[in-house]
């Protein structure tokens, strides 16, 4: 029988390690709400 590697384990090894605290920049638009959103 063919032993199938756990996908999660494979994905884990393939994932590029991200530096701790990396956050994608906020989208440029829409901007901040100055009063309230209706």
């Amino acid at each position, binding site marked *: 029988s063919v032993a199938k590697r756990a996908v999660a384990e494979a994905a884990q090894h393939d994932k590029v390690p991200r530096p701790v605290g990396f956050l994608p920049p906020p989208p440029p*638009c*829409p*901007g901040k*709400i*100055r009063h*309230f959103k*209706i």
Partner: protein
Amino acid sequence: VPAAAPAPLGCDDPESEAAADVAVSYINGQSHHGYKFALNRIENIRVIPQGLNNDIIFLELDLLETSCHILNPTPLVNCSVRSFTEHAVEGDCDVKLQKVDGVFSVLASKCNSHADSSEDIIQLCPDCPLLASLNNTEVLTTVTAALNAYNSKTAGAYLRLLEVGRAKIQYEPVHNVIVEFAVAATNCSAEEAKDNVEACQLLPDDQSNFGFCTATMVTRPSQDLRADCKLYGHQVPTPDPGVTYSQAGQGTS
């Protein structure tokens, strides 16, 4: 290696806010009815370079109605935005500007305004008065009664109605009609008007004196009418030094 294209402008970048300020000044400057609007959010901005120091900018703006009538000389920064429970009115505007050598000019703008949904207000504030149509019979009756009451008591100029700006009707716990309307002084005193009101005409532009009135009329459980009017005094029209409008502007539709 060609210089990398500049990063797209963000909606909260200082330059975007400067462009939005020019656009909002233009929109309020072009408006002759209703209330001043203030910037609530820059929804989107697109910059299309036309050459050296020359960009076309498309702005999508989300505005909110303020409590300042358009004829009120109060600077926009001092005009409070209608709160959610006052039944806010939102304006959605698309504005096309040009920026040449750092100076913005508005080429065209298009705005649509709409009141918040009554369901949203009722959900948060079941007894809050809701916006009513400006030609609602109760509204027009209240405006007429309020202006007559004010003119019958004032020692000043006889005031004529310019436009009804806003109206709300509350049904519980009392039946209450709340109106705001713009007025203008005439060339008569209120006393003179009692004899011959047809002769009372609005003052010419170089002496015009606009004002604003608020009134409430409770009709149930008892009748109670309160009206208050304030005149702004004659305003010498001054173009806004910080804003330039291109002659080719298409105006605001």
